[in-house]
């Protein structure tokens, strides 16, 4: 069974610390949200500066670290919110 490909988006300060706004990750088929965050922190230069448990959205909905990922998902790491 093939893995899942996830498009990861980074915003504001998180985009600044890694110097990019988008990363595509290839993950194992049973990957969960926490696996994607761990992969970003391990594989992307500067990724170690990202928090281990950031706020995450998948396909525009906030999710939990244990939620499963699916091929084609758009995952977003959300810095502390500051709207208004």
């Amino acid at each position, binding site marked *: 069974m093939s893995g899942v490909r996830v498009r990861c988006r980074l915003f504001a*300060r998180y985009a600044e610390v890694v110097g990019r706004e988008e990363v595509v990750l290839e993950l194992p088929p049973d990957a969960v949200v926490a696996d994607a965050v761990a992969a970003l922190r391990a594989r992307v230069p500067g990724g170690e500066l990202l928090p281990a448990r950031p706020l995450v959205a998948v396909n525009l909905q906030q999710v939990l670290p244990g939620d499963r990922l699916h091929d084609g998902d758009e995952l977003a790491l959300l810095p502390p919110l500051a709207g208004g």
Partner: protein
Amino acid sequence: MAFLTRAPIRPDELLAAVQSPERGANTLFLGTVRRGPDDGPVVRIEYTAYDAMLESEFAAIVTEAETRWPGTRVAAVHRLGDVPLGEASIAVATAAPHRTAALDAGRYVIEQAKQRLPVWKREILADGSAAWRDNAGGRVASGPPPR
């Protein structure tokens, strides 16, 4: 109706979107860029967002308010990009038959927006320095000076 704009907010258009002869109570909330008491005078704030999620989340909040206060209509918008001192970054208009629903719905929408919208702000101070700012009031980290 779009929930984000990169142009100055037009309060009259928001109010017009909710007003009707059946609704005698109308409110308008404007959140404006303030000088800031802490680290120096703020001259503008740069707002960025996860645009698609901002649209879906703001739409959900408005629907929640209109469901919770039946008969109430809500219009809301967040401005992105550079917002100068004194100009509005967010606006919420409500209209309801009576004032309690109009006021409560408006309060609900702005409070939920502050908690749920994927928006980030970087304050630009008079000395040219810049800092990300979160809604807990913390200066998150210093960024490079503005271009």
